[in-house]
């Protein structure tokens, strides 16, 4: 394995997250290395989405540290986290329903656009140049994900699989260093899953984007992921390559149950 030489991009240390009396995450630590595809798996309610929300800055853990690119990250609001180069998609699609596909993808460029209010008012000169330049980039991403034909369709009327793809496009438009995917293949048929897997691998290889994804389909996880984290009831159950995790007795127990 070449993992040893790779740089660690993100490290979460001893994260503990409580909602009132309910403990969502208990003392979980793992790392994400640059350029890898990292899967987070576990039964329902294991704290996977909560973990992503912690990385995103949407939840603030009571204890624990997050290190990103070698620096300890202070407590941040989600929009600040976005600025550090972390993008994400959602389990229940969170597209901007009132906009078309291209507009949704353009929203991903929001942080890269800087022209001030007065140029925006006039929409002339630098403001329009900027708009055109980012539009070009978005069109490239749209081409990449093969959604050209729905460019001007309002996203609300798109089928589920395509919506997921638009959401991926939007996240890619942010040109993130780290991409978090929350169940990118939930509710898809086999063909759609294959497409989506192909895109994820392509993104990882062509753009060099580091990816952390939550997924329930074990086949997909085993094929895609370089390394896997297993959570159960908010605790870390196993961490390793797909093969190691598959063979781990604790993981098998958690998924299949233990005979009483």
């Amino acid at each position, binding site marked *: 394995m070449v993992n040893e030489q790779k740089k660690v991009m993100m490290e979460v240390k001893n994260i503990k997250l409580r909602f009132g009396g309910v403990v969502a995450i208990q003392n979980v630590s793992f790392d994400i290395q640059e350029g890898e595809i990292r899967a987070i798996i576990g039964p329902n309610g294991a704290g996977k989405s909560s973990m992503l*929300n912690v990385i995103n800055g949407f939840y603030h853990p009571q204890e624990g540290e997050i290190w990103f690119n070698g620096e300890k990250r202070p407590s941040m609001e989600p929009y600040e986290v976005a600025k550090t180069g972390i993008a994400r998609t959602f389990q229940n699609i969170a597209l901007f329903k009132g906009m078309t596909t291209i507009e949704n993808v353009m929203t991903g460029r929001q942080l890269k656009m800087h022209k001030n209010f007065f140029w925006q008012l006039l929409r002339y000169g630098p403001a329009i140049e900027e708009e055109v330049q980012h539009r070009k980039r978005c069109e490239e991403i749209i081409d990449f994900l093969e959604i050209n034909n729905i460019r001007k369709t309002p996203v609300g009327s798109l089928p589920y699989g395509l919506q997921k793809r638009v959401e991926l496009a939007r996240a890619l438009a942010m040109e993130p260093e780290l991409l978090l995917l929350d169940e990118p293949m939930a509710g898809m048929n086999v063909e759609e899953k294959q497409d989506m897997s192909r895109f994820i691998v392509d993104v990882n290889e062509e753009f060099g984007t580091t990816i952390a994804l939550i997924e329930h389909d074990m086949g997909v996880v085993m094929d895609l992921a370089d390394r896997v984290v297993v959570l159960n009831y908010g605790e870390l159950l196993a961490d390793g390559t797909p093969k190691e995790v598959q063979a781990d007795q604790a993981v098998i127990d958690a998924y299949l149950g233990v005979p009483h």
Partner: protein
Amino acid sequence: MDFLTYLLTGIFLTPFAEMIEMPDLFFQALWDGFVSGTLYGLIALGFVLIFKASGVFNFAQPILVVLAALALISFYKMGIPAWLSVVCVLIMFYALAWLIERLILRKLVNTDGNILFMSTVALSFIIIGAAQWIFGGRPSSMIHKELGFPTGSLEWPMFGGGVYFEMLDISAAVVAVLLILTLGLFFSRTKIGRGLRAVADDPQAALSVGISLNQIWVIVWFVAGVVALVTGIFWGARSDVSFALQIIGFKALPVLIIGGFTSVPGAIVGGLMIGLGEKIFEIYWGPLLGSGVEGWFAYVIALGFLLFKPQGLFGDKIIERV
């Protein structure tokens, strides 16, 4: 410097000195505040019931109060005996509830709360236009005497002065409390009440266990009408009956914020807080600001709640999920 001293004494000294010097006035203010508080609570209850049962934030509630009062007076003027007029108004409200359900709500099933809310605003325009057309725009006086509510006042001497209890206010408070209790029992103990809460939770699930959505809605709107009628009678008796009565309906909104949108006890406690608070603030701190503060005091308090305790005193906690 002088101004500052004036301000500080005005805020921290004078009002309390006045309270101690003239306790009878203070008690009078408390009592007046209490009575308007019960009425605010009652009308807020009208909102809460509809909100709980159909998820509709019924903006037409204030205009229903005006409609009830105007209709009652008109029926009486047509020569119908007072109590029979009340029955007529109730029949009218039942018909109205049925119409609203048939013509509006049924067509808006499964649309989101904002649209339902807007439709009640539109409804209130229709009612305003129609009520003005039919009943005319001139203020008239309430027929509470004819309805048999006692008039005059009780005087309770104390601290060298005296506190006046208007008989009408006493009956208002009594009727309001009785109505609140009845409604509370009705919605928590009866089959219809259970159905109502089921509909509020999930209309489709409620349908699937055999609850008639349409029937529930008619009942809820009818109850809102009853609440409007009671408020209309007593508030109309305290002032004139005119379209200005709407304002009291709007007062229910801050009450809801304070009590929480879904809580029956919240509506009552919130109503009392607003009623007492604005009376006392108006009398003791109002002069400092140039009086007339009753108009916005409630809203500013509500604003404070919104910023620091958005779910209100008794509301369900709002949790956001990704």
